């Protein structure tokens, strides 16, 4: 029989349902695998000490006929989502020892659906970064090549899913932070429509852009996770009262008759030619499965990164004003009085990238510069939003784009070059600025053996279309085991066979 950790989430749920394994066995198999492989990858920053107890409680619910849709499924949670009673540090020294009093709504809904939390995953501090190098825990390494970054900021979640340290994970996406690491690690990652998933308990970075999303090995697994976490929440006024889709059915319904647009601005000189070729291969495959491929134009695409970095940092500078060392988090004392305590706490507690973004955002909002930077970026945001409205309004169902300009880069390659790092978000920030959903799906490997991701975009609340096309791409490019992982899967723990 296939080892527990080899199973994708839906297959594991079927086995749990058939009582062929217990939630406790599944949880133990994953914990053993984390113990064997994670010391080299560092995707998980904290295990849930209650995981086995929660798994046993799940088994008891199943035995009592009270199973939820994800009953017994192990999950990992990005460490910027609040978990009641389990430290949530956001990769930042300023939140050392912070233990939330409540679960984030997305986490609470996973628990209510029966999921078992394995632990918390690494991230760039406050989700600010594209490589998971800016974390107080150190970088998370890419399971395809540990000399490379896992992407960011949900790099821990992406690497954990790719290395099969968890069947699924939650991440958050403000400018590509689910989709870009998914692409770098060769897994599926979804940024839902803004408002689809409650942000309550997601530690705020840029509130008009942040969205919680699933990472998984299979498109249908991501769909099941979305179904569990979505829906309006009285505690998030921006969560939308929108009807859920039938995501599972969408994954099986094919692409016959769908109009899929290739936006020409995404195939620019910054794009690695190998990724461009892979994308055209995907387009060809979708055409073969019955979709119609057409070229479209999104004329304001090139302004998305500068607009994003003004708006996201402006919002961050305001959101992060709450870290003053008074009511929670860490305080660095200063003899010179209260203002010095603020300055020292924030200057010491925040890492260099977070400080850089707070500074940029403060500048963009400051007197004399507000209109030129923040005001202008807001207007450009409206134009980017209108580009998408025009494309989807004229009959395009789904846009097919690269997820990233390059495959995973080397550790340290861009760490001290912030602008280069920001430009790695070239193809993902647009969806956040427009509020539309985006799905990243693996599209094969580069000649170097690194994953290539393709991104699918649809109109607001049209996640079903993304799942239709994503599942079609997946049929052509099924998930593969990362090279390094395949080489290190020795011993029963690493193979997840402990419970056989």
């Amino acid at each position, binding site marked *: 029989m296939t080892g527990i950790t080899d199973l994708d989430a839906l297959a594991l749920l079927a086995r749990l349902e058939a009582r062929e394994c217990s939630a406790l066995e599944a949880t133990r198999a994953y914990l053993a695998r984390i113990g064997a492989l994670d010391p080299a990858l560092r995707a998980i920053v904290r295990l849930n000490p209650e995981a086995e107890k929660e798994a046993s409680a799940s088994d008891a619910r199943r035995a009592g006929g009270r199973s939820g849709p994800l009953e017994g499924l192990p999950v990992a949670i990005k460490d910027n989502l609040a978990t009641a009673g389990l430290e949530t540090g956001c990769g930042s020294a300023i939140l050392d*020892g912070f*233990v939330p*009093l409540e679960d984030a709504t997305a986490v609470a809904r996973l628990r209510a659906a029966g999921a078992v939390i394995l632990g918390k995953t690494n991230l760039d501090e406050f989700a600010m970064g594209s490589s998971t190098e800016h974390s107080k825990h150190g970088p998370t390494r890419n399971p395809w090549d540990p000399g490379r970054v896992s992407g960011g900021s949900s790099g821990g979640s992406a690497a954990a899913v790719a290395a099969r340290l968890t069947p699924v994970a939650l991440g958050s996406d403000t400018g590509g932070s689910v989709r870009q690491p998914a692409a770098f690690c060769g897994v599926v990652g979804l940024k839902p429509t803004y408002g689809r998933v409650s942000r309550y308990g997601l530690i705020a970075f840029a509130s008009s852009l942040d969205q919680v999303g699933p990472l998984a090995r299979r498109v249908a697994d991501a769909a099941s996770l979305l179904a569990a976490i979505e829906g*309006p929440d*009285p505690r998030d*006024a*921006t*969560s*939308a*009262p929108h009807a859920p889709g039938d995501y599972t059915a969408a994954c099986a319904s094919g692409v016959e008759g769908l109009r899929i647009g290739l936006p020409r601005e995404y195939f620019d000189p910054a794009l690695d030619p190998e990724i461009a070729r892979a994308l055209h291969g995907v387009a060809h495959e979708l055409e073969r499965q019955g979709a119609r491929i057409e070229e479209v134009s999104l004329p*304001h695409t090139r*302004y998305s990164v*500068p*607009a994003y*970095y*003004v708006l996201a940092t402006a919002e961050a*500078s305001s959101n992060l004003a709450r870290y003053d*060392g*008074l*009511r*929670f*988090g*860490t*305080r660095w*004392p200063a003899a010179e*009085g*209260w*203002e*010095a305590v*603020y*300055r*020292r706490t*924030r*200057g010491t507690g*925040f890492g*260099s990238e977070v*400080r*850089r973004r*707070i*500074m*940029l955002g*403060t*500048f963009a909002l*400051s007197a004399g510069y507000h209109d030129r*930077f923040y005001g*202008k*970026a*807001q*207007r*450009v*945001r*409206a*134009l980017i*939003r*209108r580009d998408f*409205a025009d494309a989807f309004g004229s009959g395009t169902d789904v846009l097919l784009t690269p997820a990233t300009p390059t495959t995973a880069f080397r550790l340290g390659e861009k760490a001290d070059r*912030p*602008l280069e790092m*920001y430009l790695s978000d070239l193809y993902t920030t647009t969806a956040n600025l427009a*509020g539309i959903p985006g799905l990243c799906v693996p599209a094969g490997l580069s000649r170097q053996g690194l994953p290539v991701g393709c991104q699918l975009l649809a109109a607001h609340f049209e996640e079903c279309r993304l799942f239709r096309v994503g599942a079609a791409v997946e049929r052509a490019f099924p998930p593969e085991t990362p090279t390094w992982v395949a080489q290190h899967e020795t011993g029963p723990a690493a193979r997840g066979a402990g419970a056989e």
Partner: protein
Amino acid sequence: MAIDRAEVGRIARLACLDLDDPAIDSLARDLEAILQHVTLLDEVDAARDEAVLPDLEPAAALRQDAVRPSLSQERALQNAPEAAQGFFRIPRVLD
């Protein structure tokens, strides 16, 4: 757009961040390079499109203004760096 050490100092005061000398120097360089990239936005004549934004903004949902249970004092203080006698203990603000 030139960003010098004095400008970094001005922003750092607004942002309430203590920065050492090397940090000030590297921030001056980084902010200048990033803002140079942001000037790309100057190419866009967005003025004529200003009416676009409100049309596409989703309406915010409102909830009932109802009294609900809230955190106990003890739980509210649970993550405080310093607490005493049921209060947050903070640095002295009056001399």
